[in-house]
């Protein structure tokens, strides 16, 4: 039972497999065809040349066969005409005597002497030479015995249809047919041939019976052989020509396509950052000039990039140097300011207020300098990680604790959503804490006093922390700009917390240093959410985040809205896409 089942299934499976394979092969072929310029050019050349050669070949063959057959027909017709004259001559010669004797032309045919018809057929046989050239059949239905042929021609070759046509035509008017000729010695195998039939015109010899039919049968087997060989030659030449054209197209396109392909590969490598990629320049043609131009372009590009890199390096160095250089005078200024601040009780209120302001701004200046130094360290590639396995929850709690004071000042509350079990991950806890602090400060600053949700998620490979505020949110396109240095959502707004404008940029650098992601989501009026995702093991690549970038309630609301009014869906789709 089961083998039968198997057998029943196998052909269907086979067919399906074959169909699948065919489809796959066709797809591959189509891909190859559309990808290869050379293949396309060769194919189109092949198709066009086949069409041209076929049309030309058919035309040529027809011309040749018409010419050959016309020639043969002309020759045969003139021979037939000459033979008719001879026949009439022979028939009229004894006519008077025969008529005198019996009054019946037919009687001469069977007298003891050779009949004139027999004599003339012999004469025609000698003229024709052999059946290879042509054969003659003469007959007169009315006279007994008046039926002669030359050589081995079979009388079947003259069909009844031809006879009727000859009899209906005027005497002396030729009827010609391409027909099959039969010979007695060829085993009944017909030979293609031409039959020219006429009724003998006896107007000049009224005593001769007018029922004589003369047929000339011209075999055309040699012509057929010639035409067949011509056709074979045409086919061979045509096929050769098509193949030659295809080969030429192949060679020509190869000459063009190969340099283009090399250029493409070089461009790809150049795009991949290998700026020293260059093409070999051979000759002076257009392709060589293309290669030369490409090389020039690549050299210029490399030079520009190098210059820009240098410039950037100089700028960074400058920032770093300035920061360092500013610290020494700042320390002095700071010490002086500290003195002034400490003695502010003794100053009049105006001066005391100035000392306070100076102290505040100095602190901000210091932290700004520190941030600048930090970020220049990143730019110089000097930042290193001090990795340790820690519980993310602890880090979050520490950062929240650090932010408590500020939050209270903004009458903001933290809503912590931490998992119950520890979320261990290898990280530099100082840096991660700084990231989180930055995110919390940012949320407090833009949260407009509403609750800030801090959630922690973990899965097998990664841990994530999301900080959600319900402030003004971000405009579309601002999700990435928030991480730019000194970027401000609304330039007119003053910094209330005294952020340096570098916090998020540094956080981003820190996250990247960990091999993690720091991403932002925001929507006007719905607040924003920042999500930090880190791999559990330092150095491994991050494939996904345990927490969604878009807060779940927002996502749900959108989906619901999308179902209700599909028209609005495209407008709301922005930013809804998870970076995963």
């Amino acid at each position, binding site marked *: 039972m089961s083998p039968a089942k198997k057998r029943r299934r196998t052909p269907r499976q086979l067919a399906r497999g074959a169909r699948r394979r065919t489809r796959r092969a066709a797809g591959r072929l189509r891909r190859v065809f559309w990808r290869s310029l050379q293949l396309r050019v060769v194919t189109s050349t092949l198709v066009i040349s086949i069409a041209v050669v076929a049309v030309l070949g058919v035309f040529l063959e027809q011309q040749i066969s018409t010419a050959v057959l016309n020639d043969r027909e002309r020759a045969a017709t003139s021979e037939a005409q000459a033979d008719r004259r001879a026949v009439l001559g022979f028939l009229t010669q004894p006519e008077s005597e025969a008529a005198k004797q019996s009054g019946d032309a*037919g009687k001469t*045919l*069977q*007298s*003891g*002497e*050779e*009949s004139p018809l*027999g004599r003339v*057929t*012999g004469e*025609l*046989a*000698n003229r*024709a*030479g*052999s*059946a*290879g*050239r042509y054969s003659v*059949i003469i*007959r007169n*239905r*009315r006279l*007994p*015995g*008046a*039926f*002669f*042929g*030359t*050589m*081995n*021609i*079979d*009388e079947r070759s003259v069909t009844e249809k031809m006879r009727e046509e000859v009899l209906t035509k005027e005497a002396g008017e030729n009827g010609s047919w391409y027909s099959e000729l039969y*010979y*007695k*010695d060829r085993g009944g195998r017909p030979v293609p041939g031409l039959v020219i039939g006429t009724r003998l015109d006896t107007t000049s010899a009224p005593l001769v019976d007018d029922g004589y039919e003369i047929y000339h049968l011209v075999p055309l087997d*040699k012509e057929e052989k010639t035409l067949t060989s011509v056709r074979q030659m045409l086919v061979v030449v045509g096929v050769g020509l098509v193949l030659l054209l295809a080969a030429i197209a192949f060679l020509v396109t190869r000459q063009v396509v190969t340099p283009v392909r090399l250029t493409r590969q070089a461009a790809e490598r150049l795009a991949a950052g290998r700026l020293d990629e260059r093409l070999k320049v051979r000759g002076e043609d257009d392709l060589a000039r293309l290669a030369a131009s490409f090389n020039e372009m690549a050299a210029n590009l490399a030079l520009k990039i190098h210059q820009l890199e240098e410039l950037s390096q100089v700028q960074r160095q400058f920032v770093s140097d300035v920061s360092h250089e500013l610290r020494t005078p700042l320390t002095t200024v700071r010490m002086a300011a500290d003195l002034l601040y400490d003695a502010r009780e003794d100053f009049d209120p105006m001066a005391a207020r100035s000392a306070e302001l100076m102290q505040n701004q100095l602190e901000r200046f210091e932290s700004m300098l520190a941030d600048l130094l930090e970020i220049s360290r990143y730019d110089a590639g000097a930042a290193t990680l001090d990795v340790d396995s820690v519980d993310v929850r602890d880090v979050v709690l520490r950062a929240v604790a650090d932010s408590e004071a500020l939050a209270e000042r903004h009458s903001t509350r933290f809503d912590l959503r931490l998992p119950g079990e520890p979320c261990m991950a290898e990280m530099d806890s100082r840096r991660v804490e700084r990231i989180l602090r930055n995110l919390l400060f940012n949320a407090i600053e833009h949260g407009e006093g509403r609750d800030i949700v801090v959630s922690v998620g973990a899965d097998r490979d990664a841990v994530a922390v999301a900080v959600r505020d319900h402030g003004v949110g971000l405009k579309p396109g601002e999700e990435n700009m928030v991480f730019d240095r000194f970027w401000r959502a609304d330039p007119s707004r003053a910094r209330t917390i005294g952020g340096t404008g570098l916090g998020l940029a540094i956080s981003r650098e820190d996250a990247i240093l960990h091999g993690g992601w720091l991403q932002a989501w925001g929507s006007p009026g719905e607040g924003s959410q920042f999500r930090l995702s880190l791999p559990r093991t330092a150095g491994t690549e991050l494939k996904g985040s345990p927490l969604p970038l878009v807060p779940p309630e927002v996502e749900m609301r959108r989906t619901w809205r999308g179902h209700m009014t599909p028209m609005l869906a495209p407008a709301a789709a922005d930013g809804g896409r998870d970076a995963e």
Partner: protein
Amino acid sequence: MTGTGARAVRTLRAAALALAALALVCATASCSVIPTGVRAGAVEDEGRGNPLDPPYARSIAMPPNDEWDPEKIVRGFLAAMASTGDPGRTIARQYLTDGFAGRWKPSGEVTIYQQDGIEADRPVPDGTAEVRVTLKGTVTATIKEDGLYRPSDGDLREPFTLVRDARKRWRIDAGPEGLLLSKADADRAYREANLYFLDSKRKSLVIDQVRLPVNPASTLAKATVERLLEGASGSLEGAVQTAFAQGTQLIDVTTENDHVVVNLTRRASPDDIAAMSAQLSWTLSEIVSGSRFEVRVNGESYFPGSSLVIDAQKQLGFDPWMTPPDVRPLYLQDGTLRQLGKENVGEPVAGEAGAKKGSRIRPAVSGHALKQVAALSGDRKSISVVSLVQDGQWQEWATGNELVPPSWDRYHSLWTVTHPAPGTSVVLRHYYDEVKREVKQFRVSAHDLDEVEVTALKVARDGVHVAVAVRDARGDEEVRIGTVVGEGAGSRIDNLWPVDRVDDKQEIKDLAWKDGKTLYVLTGKSELLEASLTGESKPLGFYAHIESITALDRALLAGAVDDEGNRQILYWDSAKWQPLVKDENGTTGFTEDGPAHPAFPLG
């Protein structure tokens, strides 16, 4: 100014270039397709005729026309019988009633007639049930089934009875058996062919003249070789041999390149290859236009690794007597034997024959190297032989009564006929035994000649054919041609057949073979006839004074005596007789004791 000039020059140059290109295109287009002044490659001339079959016309049988009257029906039937493309004569049978068609057999001997007329008994009024139509004429010949053509004569009156069939059409209900062909139809329906066979020693070629029916489905060459393989016709029965192995069949005769290929089923024995080549070559070269023949066996080359190619030119030498050399005749003058020399002046032969006068007549010259001459004594009672050497002596070989002039055959035996009693004849054959130095005489068995008087006997140069002139009891004379079978004591003369009737009651003076098939006959009225077995006798000319003749190929000599008894030898220049032998003065007149009884070797 210079700019304009330069532009003009450029335009001119461009125009010239365009013109040159145009001229080139025109020249190429109108360039002759067939190059003149160049050697043409040799192209085989195939297709210009089938070399195996000379052109011929044939009569095609036509079915009867319903409106024909009895006479036309008979004419149509006679014509339909002559159609060779219809071997079963199915169309001819359509002229017959069903009953007669069943009885009628178109095979067997063919009668050839010369038609005088076809007569219906009486006019045919409507409603007549039976009409008799008679074919009148003379029979000229018959052709036997083996192709043997025999002239004959006799009146022909063949009645045909015609009746109306169910559809009121006239059909032949009774008529002659066998095929009746008019002479013209027979000439069209049959073709002459000479088949070459071998004598008993396989050294000479013997011609067998036959008529082969034209077969459109075959070629003459093929039909001839097929007939050659079948063996000789009745006229040479038992007298000839063939070199082909027993049962050899012909597969095909074709042409290939420049030679004719004969494809057989069997090989001949190695000793017979030369003879077979000669037979084929001689038989075929009269028909086909090639001179090289190749024999294959079952499509393969004759010898392993090499082919048997026969060159017709080389085969001419197989039998030297087929193409005899220029031989000077001997003759008698003033009782001595002379040989015609340069400038037609006679020289005495060596030995006794040339020196000593004798009364011998009718010399005969042998064919072999010894050059023996036999001569009849004046009283016709003995025959003596002399060798033409320095010390050659006349030696008596045979004696008898009324001996006929001697005749040598190619085997060096001497033939004569003696008449023991009036009206009876005994043919004798003599051999010379070189060892015992004696003559052996054998009686040749010839039953047809025992009871008649043989007046002349000549053995042909092929050693097989023999011609005799006989006079029967009533005094009628005729010439018969037969064959020699066997040798020595077993010799006999067979297959004797009269040649076309020489003029009735004519005396026959002498016989001479021209070649293997043609005989010259000298009649008593000095009329010369050219006769053969297969044709009518042709009178050549008349000269009253001829007493003997001799011939060799195209040379024909006669010994003549005028009313005064003066003699001279004449030669036939294909129009009339001319004197031949010059005397010392260079004149060629008749003289007393002038040259007489010329003789070529053999024949």
